[in-house]
Protein backbone atom coordinates (compact mmCIF):
# COMPACT_ATOMS: atom_id res chain seq x y z
CA UNK A 1 0.00 0.00 0.00
CA UNK A 2 2.90 2.31 0.85
CA UNK A 3 4.40 1.66 -2.56
CA UNK A 4 1.17 2.62 -4.30
CA UNK A 5 1.05 5.89 -2.34
CA UNK A 6 4.62 6.72 -3.39
CA UNK A 7 3.79 5.88 -6.99
CA UNK A 8 0.70 8.14 -6.98
CA UNK A 9 2.72 10.93 -5.40
CA UNK A 10 5.48 10.73 -8.06
CA UNK A 11 2.87 10.51 -10.83
CA UNK A 12 1.09 13.65 -9.55
CA UNK A 13 4.36 15.60 -9.25
CA UNK A 14 5.40 14.59 -12.78
CA UNK A 15 2.09 15.63 -14.30
CA UNK A 16 2.03 18.90 -12.43
CA UNK A 17 5.49 19.89 -13.69
CA UNK A 18 4.56 18.78 -17.21
CA UNK A 19 1.45 20.99 -17.19
CA UNK A 20 3.52 23.90 -15.97
CA UNK A 21 5.99 23.42 -18.78
CA UNK A 22 3.16 23.36 -21.32
CA UNK A 23 1.62 26.58 -20.09
CA UNK A 24 5.00 28.33 -20.22
CA UNK A 25 5.63 27.18 -23.74
CA UNK A 26 5.31 29.88 -26.32
CA UNK A 27 2.13 29.63 -28.41
CA UNK A 28 4.03 30.20 -31.62
CA UNK A 29 6.43 27.36 -30.89
CA UNK A 30 3.59 25.05 -29.99
CA UNK A 31 2.00 25.73 -33.37
CA UNK A 32 5.32 25.28 -35.25
CA UNK A 33 5.85 21.95 -33.49
CA UNK A 34 2.47 20.65 -34.63
CA UNK A 35 3.17 21.53 -38.27
CA UNK A 36 5.00 19.15 -40.57
CA UNK A 37 7.74 20.57 -42.76
CA UNK A 38 6.63 19.24 -46.15
CA UNK A 39 10.05 19.52 -47.75
CA UNK A 40 11.98 17.89 -44.89
CA UNK A 41 12.44 14.31 -43.75
CA UNK A 42 10.52 13.83 -40.51
CA UNK A 43 11.01 17.38 -39.24
CA UNK A 44 8.49 19.79 -37.87
CA UNK A 45 8.36 23.43 -38.93
CA UNK A 46 9.88 24.28 -35.53
CA UNK A 47 12.93 22.08 -36.16
CA UNK A 48 13.54 23.04 -39.78
CA UNK A 49 15.52 25.91 -41.26
CA UNK A 50 14.21 25.27 -44.76
CA UNK A 51 12.82 28.08 -46.84
CA UNK A 52 9.32 26.57 -46.61
CA UNK A 53 9.45 26.29 -42.81
CA UNK A 54 10.66 29.88 -42.48
CA UNK A 55 7.81 31.17 -44.64
CA UNK A 56 5.26 29.11 -42.68
CA UNK A 57 6.61 30.61 -39.44
CA UNK A 58 6.14 34.14 -40.83
CA UNK A 59 2.60 33.32 -41.96
CA UNK A 60 1.73 31.80 -38.55
CA UNK A 61 3.03 34.94 -36.80
CA UNK A 62 1.00 37.13 -39.16
CA UNK A 63 -2.15 35.10 -38.59
CA UNK A 64 -1.71 35.33 -34.80
CA UNK A 65 -1.31 39.09 -35.11
CA UNK A 66 -4.47 39.19 -37.23
CA UNK A 67 -6.27 37.61 -34.27
CA UNK A 68 -6.58 34.01 -35.44
CA UNK A 69 -6.40 31.39 -32.71
CA UNK A 70 -4.43 28.15 -32.79
CA UNK A 71 -7.32 26.08 -34.15
CA UNK A 72 -8.10 28.58 -36.90
CA UNK A 73 -4.45 28.56 -38.02
CA UNK A 74 -4.45 24.76 -38.21
CA UNK A 75 -7.69 24.86 -40.21
CA UNK A 76 -6.27 27.49 -42.55
CA UNK A 77 -3.11 25.48 -43.26
CA UNK A 78 -4.97 22.16 -43.51
CA UNK A 79 -7.26 23.80 -46.07
CA UNK A 80 -4.21 24.70 -48.17
CA UNK A 81 -2.01 21.63 -47.68
CA UNK A 82 -4.39 18.96 -46.43
CA UNK A 83 -4.32 17.26 -43.00
CA UNK A 84 -0.84 15.91 -43.84
CA UNK A 85 0.65 19.22 -42.64
CA UNK A 86 -0.71 18.58 -39.12
CA UNK A 87 1.08 16.23 -36.77
CA UNK A 88 -2.11 15.96 -34.72
CA UNK A 89 -4.79 15.01 -37.23
CA UNK A 90 -8.33 16.24 -36.54
CA UNK A 91 -11.09 13.87 -35.46
CA UNK A 92 -12.77 12.82 -38.70
CA UNK A 93 -14.62 9.72 -39.84
CA UNK A 94 -11.34 8.48 -41.38
CA UNK A 95 -9.38 8.94 -38.16
CA UNK A 96 -11.88 7.64 -35.60
CA UNK A 97 -9.94 4.41 -35.15
CA UNK A 98 -6.68 6.31 -34.71
CA UNK A 99 -8.17 8.39 -31.91
CA UNK A 100 -10.19 5.64 -30.24
CA UNK A 101 -7.62 2.83 -30.24
CA UNK A 102 -5.49 4.12 -27.33
CA UNK A 103 -8.60 4.43 -25.15
CA UNK A 104 -9.81 1.01 -26.22
CA UNK A 105 -6.43 -0.52 -25.37
CA UNK A 106 -6.43 1.30 -22.05
CA UNK A 107 -9.84 -0.06 -21.12
CA UNK A 108 -8.98 -3.58 -22.31
CA UNK A 109 -5.71 -3.43 -20.37
CA UNK A 110 -7.53 -2.30 -17.23
CA UNK A 111 -10.04 -5.16 -17.58
CA UNK A 112 -7.25 -7.70 -18.12
CA UNK A 113 -5.35 -6.32 -15.12
CA UNK A 114 -8.48 -6.46 -12.97
CA UNK A 115 -9.10 -10.13 -13.72
CA UNK A 116 -5.43 -11.01 -13.32
CA UNK A 117 -5.24 -9.30 -9.93
CA UNK A 118 -8.51 -10.88 -8.86
CA UNK A 119 -7.20 -14.31 -9.75
CA UNK A 120 -3.86 -13.73 -8.00
CA UNK A 121 -5.53 -12.49 -4.82
CA UNK A 122 -7.91 -15.44 -4.84
CA UNK A 123 -4.97 -17.87 -5.03
CA UNK A 124 -3.16 -16.07 -2.21
CA UNK A 125 -6.17 -16.29 0.10
CA UNK A 126 -6.35 -20.05 -0.04
Amino acid at each position, binding site marked *: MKNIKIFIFIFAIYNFSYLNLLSEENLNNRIYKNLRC*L*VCQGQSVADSNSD*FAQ*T*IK*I*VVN*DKLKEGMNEEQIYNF*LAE*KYGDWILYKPPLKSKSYLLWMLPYMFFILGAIALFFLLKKTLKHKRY
Partner: protein
Amino acid sequence: MKKITLGLVAIAVSFVILIFYYGLKTEKIYNTEELVGKSILEIDLKLLNENRVFNTRELTNNDFTLINFWASWCGPCRKEHKHLVYLSKNKNIKILGINLKDERSQANKFIKKMGNPYYLIASDHDGKKSIHFGVYGIPETILINKDLTIIKKYIGPIDGQDVKKILSLVSE
Protein backbone atom coordinates in the same frame (compact mmCIF):
# COMPACT_ATOMS: atom_id res chain seq x y z
CA MET B 1 -7.97 -18.90 -19.03
CA LYS B 2 -4.64 -19.77 -20.64
CA LYS B 3 -6.34 -20.26 -23.99
CA ILE B 4 -8.04 -16.86 -23.74
CA THR B 5 -4.72 -15.17 -22.87
CA LEU B 6 -3.00 -16.85 -25.81
CA GLY B 7 -5.83 -15.81 -28.11
CA LEU B 8 -5.61 -12.21 -26.94
CA VAL B 9 -1.82 -12.16 -27.45
CA ALA B 10 -2.27 -13.60 -30.96
CA ILE B 11 -4.85 -10.91 -31.81
CA ALA B 12 -2.59 -8.16 -30.45
CA VAL B 13 0.46 -9.43 -32.40
CA SER B 14 -1.58 -9.76 -35.63
CA PHE B 15 -2.90 -6.25 -35.11
CA VAL B 16 0.61 -4.80 -34.67
CA ILE B 17 1.84 -6.64 -37.80
CA LEU B 18 -1.16 -5.33 -39.75
CA ILE B 19 -0.49 -1.75 -38.62
CA PHE B 20 3.20 -2.04 -39.60
CA TYR B 21 2.26 -3.54 -42.96
CA TYR B 22 -0.15 -0.74 -43.82
CA GLY B 23 2.19 1.86 -42.34
CA LEU B 24 5.02 0.78 -44.63
CA LYS B 25 2.76 0.37 -47.62
CA THR B 26 1.18 3.82 -47.37
CA GLU B 27 2.82 6.53 -49.46
CA LYS B 28 4.24 9.20 -47.16
CA ILE B 29 4.91 11.80 -49.82
CA TYR B 30 2.80 14.91 -49.78
CA ASN B 31 0.32 14.95 -52.63
CA THR B 32 -2.32 17.40 -53.67
CA GLU B 33 -5.28 15.08 -54.13
CA GLU B 34 -7.13 16.72 -51.24
CA LEU B 35 -6.85 20.14 -52.86
CA VAL B 36 -8.61 19.28 -56.11
CA GLY B 37 -12.17 20.57 -55.94
CA LYS B 38 -11.37 23.27 -53.41
CA SER B 39 -11.44 26.97 -54.27
CA ILE B 40 -8.45 29.23 -54.26
CA LEU B 41 -8.53 32.15 -51.90
CA GLU B 42 -9.50 35.60 -53.12
CA ILE B 43 -6.41 37.62 -52.31
CA ASP B 44 -4.61 40.71 -53.51
CA LEU B 45 -1.39 40.29 -55.44
CA LYS B 46 1.03 43.02 -56.38
CA LEU B 47 1.83 43.08 -60.07
CA LEU B 48 5.49 42.79 -61.00
CA ASN B 49 5.74 45.57 -63.59
CA GLU B 50 2.67 47.66 -62.85
CA ASN B 51 1.98 49.80 -59.88
CA ARG B 52 -1.34 48.21 -59.07
CA VAL B 53 -2.84 45.38 -57.10
CA PHE B 54 -4.65 42.46 -58.71
CA ASN B 55 -7.27 40.41 -56.89
CA THR B 56 -7.63 36.74 -57.74
CA ARG B 57 -11.39 37.34 -57.93
CA GLU B 58 -10.70 38.83 -61.36
CA LEU B 59 -9.77 35.35 -62.57
CA THR B 60 -13.50 34.57 -62.75
CA ASN B 61 -13.39 36.47 -66.06
CA ASN B 62 -11.31 33.66 -67.59
CA ASP B 63 -12.74 30.27 -68.52
CA PHE B 64 -9.60 28.55 -67.28
CA THR B 65 -6.55 29.99 -65.60
CA LEU B 66 -3.23 28.32 -65.08
CA ILE B 67 -1.46 29.82 -62.09
CA ASN B 68 2.25 29.21 -62.39
CA PHE B 69 4.72 29.86 -59.56
CA TRP B 70 8.19 30.55 -60.88
CA ALA B 71 11.46 32.41 -60.32
CA SER B 72 14.47 33.31 -62.45
CA TRP B 73 16.77 31.42 -60.06
CA CYS B 74 14.77 28.20 -60.39
CA GLY B 75 16.31 25.66 -62.77
CA PRO B 76 13.23 23.45 -63.28
CA CYS B 77 11.21 26.61 -64.14
CA ARG B 78 13.55 27.13 -67.08
CA LYS B 79 12.87 23.54 -68.15
CA GLU B 80 9.07 23.88 -68.12
CA HIS B 81 8.94 27.37 -69.63
CA LYS B 82 8.68 26.21 -73.25
CA HIS B 83 5.57 24.20 -72.32
CA LEU B 84 3.98 27.28 -70.76
CA VAL B 85 4.76 29.29 -73.89
CA TYR B 86 3.07 26.55 -75.94
CA LEU B 87 0.02 26.51 -73.65
CA SER B 88 -0.30 30.29 -73.79
CA LYS B 89 -1.20 29.99 -77.49
CA ASN B 90 -4.43 28.20 -76.56
CA LYS B 91 -7.29 30.68 -76.35
CA ASN B 92 -9.23 28.70 -73.71
CA ILE B 93 -6.57 29.27 -71.14
CA LYS B 94 -4.84 32.24 -69.57
CA ILE B 95 -1.66 31.93 -67.58
CA LEU B 96 -1.05 33.97 -64.47
CA GLY B 97 2.58 33.94 -63.40
CA ILE B 98 3.45 34.46 -59.75
CA ASN B 99 7.08 35.36 -59.42
CA LEU B 100 8.36 34.01 -56.10
CA LYS B 101 11.16 35.43 -53.93
CA ASP B 102 12.88 37.00 -56.91
CA GLU B 103 14.45 40.26 -58.00
CA ARG B 104 12.31 42.20 -60.45
CA SER B 105 15.23 42.88 -62.82
CA GLN B 106 16.20 39.19 -62.89
CA ALA B 107 12.59 38.13 -63.47
CA ASN B 108 12.24 40.52 -66.39
CA LYS B 109 15.56 39.34 -67.85
CA PHE B 110 14.28 35.74 -67.65
CA ILE B 111 11.05 36.62 -69.47
CA LYS B 112 12.87 38.61 -72.13
CA LYS B 113 15.17 35.67 -72.85
CA MET B 114 12.69 32.77 -72.56
CA GLY B 115 9.47 34.39 -73.82
CA ASN B 116 6.39 35.61 -71.98
CA PRO B 117 3.56 33.07 -71.63
CA TYR B 118 1.84 35.11 -68.90
CA TYR B 119 -1.06 37.50 -69.43
CA LEU B 120 -0.27 38.90 -65.99
CA ILE B 121 2.75 38.58 -63.74
CA ALA B 122 2.32 39.07 -60.02
CA SER B 123 5.07 39.27 -57.47
CA ASP B 124 5.34 37.38 -54.19
CA HIS B 125 8.58 38.79 -52.89
CA ASP B 126 8.53 37.18 -49.43
CA GLY B 127 6.67 33.99 -50.40
CA LYS B 128 3.78 34.58 -47.98
CA LYS B 129 1.12 34.73 -50.70
CA SER B 130 2.19 31.37 -52.07
CA ILE B 131 1.22 29.76 -48.75
CA HIS B 132 -2.38 30.86 -49.46
CA PHE B 133 -2.24 28.72 -52.60
CA GLY B 134 -0.78 25.68 -50.81
CA VAL B 135 2.56 26.03 -52.59
CA TYR B 136 5.67 24.63 -50.94
CA GLY B 137 8.27 24.84 -53.67
CA ILE B 138 8.65 25.96 -57.24
CA PRO B 139 7.71 25.41 -59.95
CA GLU B 140 4.13 24.64 -59.07
CA THR B 141 1.16 25.04 -61.36
CA ILE B 142 -2.53 25.18 -60.50
CA LEU B 143 -5.29 24.87 -63.06
CA ILE B 144 -8.51 26.56 -61.97
CA ASN B 145 -11.84 27.09 -63.66
CA LYS B 146 -14.16 30.09 -63.85
CA ASP B 147 -15.43 29.43 -60.30
CA LEU B 148 -11.85 29.54 -58.97
CA THR B 149 -12.05 25.82 -58.22
CA ILE B 150 -8.84 23.82 -58.47
CA ILE B 151 -9.07 21.24 -61.25
CA LYS B 152 -5.50 20.05 -61.19
CA LYS B 153 -2.32 20.90 -59.34
CA TYR B 154 1.18 20.07 -60.50
CA ILE B 155 4.15 19.96 -58.17
CA GLY B 156 7.41 20.37 -60.06
CA PRO B 157 7.90 21.26 -63.72
CA ILE B 158 5.13 20.36 -66.15
CA ASP B 159 6.10 18.23 -69.15
CA GLY B 160 4.65 17.27 -72.51
CA GLN B 161 2.23 14.76 -70.95
CA ASP B 162 0.94 17.38 -68.53
CA VAL B 163 0.44 19.80 -71.43
CA LYS B 164 -1.74 17.21 -73.20
CA LYS B 165 -3.72 16.63 -70.02
CA ILE B 166 -4.23 20.37 -69.44
CA LEU B 167 -5.33 20.90 -73.04
CA SER B 168 -7.83 18.05 -72.78
CA LEU B 169 -9.20 19.48 -69.53
CA VAL B 170 -9.69 22.98 -70.92
CA SER B 171 -11.25 21.79 -74.16
CA GLU B 172 -13.96 19.72 -72.39
